[in-house]
């Protein structure tokens, strides 16, 4: 399994770490040289420096042979664009995008992103799960 993770934020780093521990070959794309050095020191040279919404960067990261592409940038729009390039230009099997906006998460699903993780939904559910028992006790 060859996976590309876009974005070296805390989520991107955690996901990459887990993928590597699970035996996947991982390349991370990051455009900030300082973050690149940080993550390269952490995992060995796994980072391709560049803008993940540009065809050349995905090519340099080896997208043509990737099975999985995970976009973890803070912008839903950039995650959409990167996943669509991965899907349509490089025929990556599975594209996954994080989304911070429920309306946009819905749209990403319609636009062909294979898996969309709606962070608002996820966090709301978790908070509900924790808070719900407290509400019952109150009654």
């Amino acid at each position, binding site marked *: 399994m060859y996976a590309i993770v876009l974005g070296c934020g805390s989520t991107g780093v955690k996901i990459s770490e887990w993928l590597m521990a699970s035996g996947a070959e991982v390349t991370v794309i990051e455009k900030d040289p300082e973050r690149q050095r940080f993550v390269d020191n952490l995992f060995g040279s796994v980072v391709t420096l560049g803008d993940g919404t540009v065809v050349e960067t995905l090519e340099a990261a080896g997208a043509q042979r990737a099975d999985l592409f995970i976009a973890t940038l803070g912008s*839903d729009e950039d995650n*959409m664009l990167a996943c669509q*390039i991965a899907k*349509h230009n490089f025929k990556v099997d599975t594209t996954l995008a994080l989304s911070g906006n429920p*309306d946009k998460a819905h*749209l990403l699903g319609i636009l062909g992103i294979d898996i969309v993780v709606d962070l608002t939904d996820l966090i709301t559910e978790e908070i509900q799960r924790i808070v719900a028992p407290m509400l019952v006790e109150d009654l």
Partner: protein
Amino acid sequence: MAQISEDNANSGIQRLKRVAIIGCGSFGAQIAVELCKSGNLVIMIDRDPEAFSLLPSDLIENSRIVTSVGDGTLETSLRQAGVQDVDLLIATTKTPSINLMSAQLARHVMRIPEVVCLVNDSQLIPIYKGLGITVINPDGLLMDVIREGLA
């Protein structure tokens, strides 16, 4: 909106096209004015109400350009602006991914017949052509003109 329809009926020329423009930057504003000059009606959408100051005030006063503050990548914003009835949408913000999301929302969710999107990256043209979006590369066009001038 009703007022625009009356203008439309009274103008006497062929049916006016309604055009939505996302992003009231220098590009968007210029396109809006040109489309108005050729008799079309324009809905201009921008997140920043101050951006509309780039538009000639007479065109806003006589409702040839209708402005709407909103996020061009959200269906609610587009519907609020009346975009569901337009013949053409042009996405002209300075962020390529926002233009592409807005364009695909318009084309594939709201079923706008023609959608054009400005992106300074010619490598994206074939990808989005396949997805029903016309991508125009302004930098590429400029380079063509410069090359022709030098030839």
